[in-house]
C-alpha cells in the first residue's frame, strides 16, 4: 500500500439500525481508506446486508454518523450515487427486460460526458468481454455469473470513488468466483476503493487488505486479511 492509504474515505461512527423493534446492527464503527479493499464478513444474520443498506440509503439508520470523503453521507440512494458511491446490490438485481448495453447505460444515468461514458464502456467491455458479445441481449438471458459481471460493470459505469458489493459470490461456481475476485483486485488497483460484504470468508480474506468480522449486529474482530486467515479459532467460531 502507498502512503495514500492513510486517507480515510469512509468513516462510520456508532451506527445502529433496526427493523421495527429488532436491532439488526448495534453501535458499529469502522473506516475504509482510499484505495483499499475492505471485507465485511459474518455468518447469516450477522447484519452485513443491513449495514450495506444503511450505507446505500435503502434503509434508514436509527443512530450514528456516516461520513464519506469528510462530509456526512446524504440519505437518499440517488444522492449517494452522486457523491461517488456505487452499490452492487445483493442478488445482482439486473434489469431483465433491458439489454446488456441499456443496463450499463442506466449505471451512468447521472453522467453527461459522452466521451467519458464511451471510454468507460470500452473499459468494462475489456474487463468482461462476455458482456460485449452479449450487449444486444436482454439482461435476463445472461447466466448467473454473467449477471454478476453485468452488475459490477453497471456499478463501475457511474465512475465511483467507492464500490460497495453485497455478496458477489452468492450462488456462483467457484471458478467464476475466482474470476470475479481477480476483477475486483484490478478495479482496486486502478484506484477505486472497494467495500466487500461476503459470506465466502476465505475468498474475501485472500483478496482484501483489511477485514472486519460481524456477529449478531456487532463487529467482533478486525485485522488484515492475512492475520484473520491465519486465525483458525476465528474461522471456526464465526465463519465456518
Amino acid at each position, binding site marked *: 500500500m502507498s502512503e495514500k492509504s492513510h486517507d480515510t474515505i469512509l468513516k462510520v461512527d456508532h451506527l445502529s439500525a433496526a427493523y421495527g423493534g429488532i436491532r439488526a446492527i448495534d453501535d458499529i464503527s469502522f473506516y475504509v481508506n482510499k484505495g483499499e479493499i475492505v471485507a465485511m464478513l459474518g455468518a447469516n444474520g450477522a447484519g452485513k446486508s443491513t449495514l450495506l443498506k444503511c450505507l446505500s440509503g435503502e434503509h434508514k439508520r436509527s443512530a450514528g454518523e456516516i461520513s464519506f470523503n469528510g462530509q456526512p453521507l446524504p440519505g437518499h*440512494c440517488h444522492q449517494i*450515487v*452522486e457523491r461517488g458511491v456505487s452499490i452492487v446490490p445483493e442478488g445482482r438485481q*439486473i*434489469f431483465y427486460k*433491458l439489454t446488456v448495453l441499456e443496463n450499463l447505460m*442506466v449505471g451512468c*444515468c447521472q453522467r453527461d460526458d459522452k466521451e467519458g461514458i464511451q471510454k468507460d464502456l470500452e473499459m468494462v467491455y475489456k474487463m468482461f468481454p462476455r458482456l460485449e458479445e452479449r450487449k444486444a441481449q436482454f439482461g435476463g438471458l445472461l447466466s448467473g455469473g454473467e449477471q454478476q459481471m453485468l452488475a459490477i460493470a453497471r*456499478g463501475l459505469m457511474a465512475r465511483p470513488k467507492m464500490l460497495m458489493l453485497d455478496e458477489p459470490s452468492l450462488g456462483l461456481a467457484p471458478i467464476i468466483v475466482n474470476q470475479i475476485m481477480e476483477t475486483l483486485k484490478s478495479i482496486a488497483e486502478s484506484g477505486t476503493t472497494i467495500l466487500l460484504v461476503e459470506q465466502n470468508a476465505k475468498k474475501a480474506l485472500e483478496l482484501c487488505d483489511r477485514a472486519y468480522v460481524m456477529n449478531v449486529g456487532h463487529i467482533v474482530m478486525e485485522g488484515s486479511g492475512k492475520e484473520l486467515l491465519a486465525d483458525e479459532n476465528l474461522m471456526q467460531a464465526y465463519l465456518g
Partner: protein
Amino acid sequence: MINSFYEGIIVTCCVNIIAVLGMSVLTGFTRLFSFGNAGFMAIGAYTAAICSVQFHLPFFLAIICGAVAAGIIAYLLGSLTIRLRGDYFLISCLGFGECVRVLFLYLRNITGGAVGYTGIPYRTTWVVALVCAVAAFIIAWNLIHSRFGQAFSAIRENEVAAAANGIDVVKYKKMSFVFSAVFAGWAGGLYAHYLQHITPVLFNLPKSCELVITTVLGGLGSLTGSVLGTLVVQLLPEFFRKFSEYRMLAYGIAVVLVILLRPAGLMGYMEFPDLIRKITKKKSTGGA
C-alpha cells in the same frame, strides 16, 4: 371528402391513441397502474371546453389549458400518492377518477351537471385529430428513447436496482404520472371539441378500465403496440356493429384470446421495427 361515420371513427381512434400513449408510458414503461386516467381526460375536456366557451380562447390554447390543468392536478395528486406501492397507488387513482366524475356531476353551475356541458365549438376535425395523434406519438417516442425513458424502464424492471444506480425513483415516477395525465387531458380536450357536448358519464370508471385494458392488450413496454391495441379495441366493435348485441361478446372473446395466446400483449416489449426484424430473421434462417 370523408363522411361523418368514418370521421367519427378516425377522431375516436386518434383521441384514444393519445390517451393510451400516456397510459403506455405510465403502465407499460414505468409499471404504475392507474385506473383514474379518465378523470384526467375529464379535467382536460371540461377545462378546454370552459376556456373555449366562457373565455373565447382559440382552439389550440384551450387544448393546451386542458392538458396543463390535468398535468397540474396530476402533479399535486402524485406528490401525495406516488410513494404508495402497487395496488395502493392503483386504488388511490381509482378513487381520484370517481371523485372527479362526481365533482363534475355536482358542480352544476360550472359544468352543467348530469345534463352536460353544451355549446362547445366543433373544432376537432379528423385532420386535426390525426395530426395530434401523430404529434403525440412522436413526443412519446422521443421521451421513451431519451434518458428519461431509460429511467422509466429501469424503474419498471427493478425499483431497488434503479435507486441503487442513482435514479431518483420518486421524481421519475411523478414525471411519468404527470406525462400520462397531460396526454389524457389533451385527448379529453380534443374529444370535447369533437362531441360539442360532454357529460361526466363519458369519463367514468369503465373508460379508465378501457384505457388500461387497451394498453395491456397492445403490449406493455411498446408504443406501437399501444397504437395497435387502440385500433383493435376501437375498431373491433365497429366491424361487429351488424351483430349489435353480440359485438360486445366478440370484444370480450378477443380480449380473452389475446391474454391466453399472447400474455405479454400483442407487441409486448417490442416495437414495430423489432417485429419486422424478427419476422425477416425467422424467414431467412428458416430458408437456409
